């Protein structure tokens, strides 16, 4: 496929790996042998790294840390409970992306609620949910708005269309989140162990690369916005390592075929017209982060599921056994979690990092990270 196969060329991948190795050998003597921790912010990168086995190609001293950029993984228990409470209300059709179906709430998941009789439907696009509302005027149709700036414009444009058409039985339960406050919170955490970042390509397509400059300037960490094919990820790692050995910290854009400096202004306008930042939003594993979530503007109040339905809106603690928080901050590798692969599997997830294929724990589990797993001694791993 165009713009895909070119970026999967094995000889070019080998050249990039050789470049990374030679850059790593130029690190100062005192750092030789010490791990260089690079966080891939976005779950899409986590998925690509495992799918193509990129980690196994890299020098052992490069450690990839899987960041918080998977909107399903960071959805807190309380919001899942709210979604279930809406989905089980009288006459509701609840529409969600498939990724969110199995995220555990405190008692059950949306899939569980569906099995118990709730009308939960999987949609590919918010426009499918709007079409369901048009087709079922006697029902209330709720769309589970999920995702970072990548998907927020789609929800926004769908709401603008619902407003234009005067659809009165369509609602959005917004759980959209924004990446910059989350990165800031991570960087402010004392226990963050990350030397540089691979930046989210598709979020950046919308917001551009300007918003990341504080990370290089203030926090002195290299930040490279990256594409999702193997060559993209390897080239971005080489760029981060190059900055590291040269003692520089700047924002660079590896994914220039899709990401412009300014981002997509039409998409940004749609977000601002429809959404505004919430005072606080809770993230699974990371706790409450100021201005990190998006809620509907007052003009769209009549489409707001949080106003149309009585949601419990409780803050529910993460399950005790789950160490997603430590995983998201790079302190723990997924297989180091006590319940990884035993009590917590993709079939019976305890934490949401095990649910989505973009979650770090699910990626480790599904692609059997044998080299990393073998290093961890005494671990029982399912085939």
């Amino acid at each position, binding site marked *: 496929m165009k*713009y*895909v196969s070119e970026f999967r060329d094995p000889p070019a991948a080998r050249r990039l790996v050789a470049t990374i190795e030679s850059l790593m050998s130029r690190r100062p003597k005192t750092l030789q042998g010490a791990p260089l921790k690079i966080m891939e912010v976005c779950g899409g990168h986590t998925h690509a790294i495992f799918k193509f086995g990129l980690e196994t190609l890299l020098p052992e001293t490069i450690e990839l840390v899987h960041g918080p950029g998977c909107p399903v993984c960071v959805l807190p228990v309380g919001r899942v409970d709210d979604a279930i409470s809406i989905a089980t209300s009288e006459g509701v059709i609840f529409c969600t992306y498939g990724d969110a179906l199995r995220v555990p709430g405190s008692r059950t998941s949306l899939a569980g609620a569906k099995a118990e009789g709730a009308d939960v439907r999987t949609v590919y696009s*918010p426009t499918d949910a709007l079409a369901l509302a048009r087709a079922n005027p006697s029902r209330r149709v709720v769309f589970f708005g999920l995702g970072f700036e990548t998907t927020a*414009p789609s929800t926004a*444009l769908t709401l603008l269309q619902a407003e234009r058409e005067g659809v009165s039985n369509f609602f959005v339960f917004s759980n959209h989140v924004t990446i910059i406050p989350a990165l800031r919170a991570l960087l402010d955490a004392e226990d963050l162990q990350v030397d540089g970042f691979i930046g989210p390509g598709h979020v950046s397509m919308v917001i551009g690369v300007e918003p990341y400059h504080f990370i290089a300037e203030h926090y002195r960490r290299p930040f490279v916005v990256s594409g999702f094919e193997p*060559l993209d990820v390897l*080239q971005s790692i080489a760029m981060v390592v190059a900055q590291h050995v040269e003692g520089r910290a700047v924002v660079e854009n590896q994914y220039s075929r899709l990401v412009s400096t300014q981002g997509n202004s039409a998409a940004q306008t749609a977000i601002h017209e429809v959404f505004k930042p919430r005072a606080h939003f809770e993230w699974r594993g990371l706790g409450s982060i100021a201005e990190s979530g998006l809620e509907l503007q007052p003009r769209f109040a009549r489409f707001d599921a949080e106003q149309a339905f009585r949601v419990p809106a409780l803050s529910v603690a993460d399950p005790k056994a789950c160490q997603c928080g430590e995983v998201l901050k790079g302190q723990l590798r997924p297989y180091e979690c006590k319940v990884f692969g035993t009590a917590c599997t993709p079939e019976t997830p305890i934490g949401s990092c095990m649910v989505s294929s973009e979650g770090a724990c699910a990626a480790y589990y599904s692609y059997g990270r044998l080299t990393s797993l073998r290093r961890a001694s005494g671990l029982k791993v399912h085939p």
Partner: protein
Amino acid sequence: MCLGVPGQVVAIDDAKTARGVVDVGGVRRVANLACVLEGDDPQALVGAWVLIHVGFAMSRIDAEEAARTLDLIKQLGELDDAP
């Protein structure tokens, strides 16, 4: 949901709402093109490559930049191969 798929715009379905038909690896899909319009005429998008997320095109794929990135990677090899 977060990973986009590349496709080529083959037709405009409804110019008013910027709805088009996109060929994604041989499969035709309807997509909203409102965020990738340049100027007022959606028809100008026919033939363009775009990246689609949840039914919405969020960016055009810049062929020149794609070639430039691949060139940079190629040059790495040539430097290493140089005596």
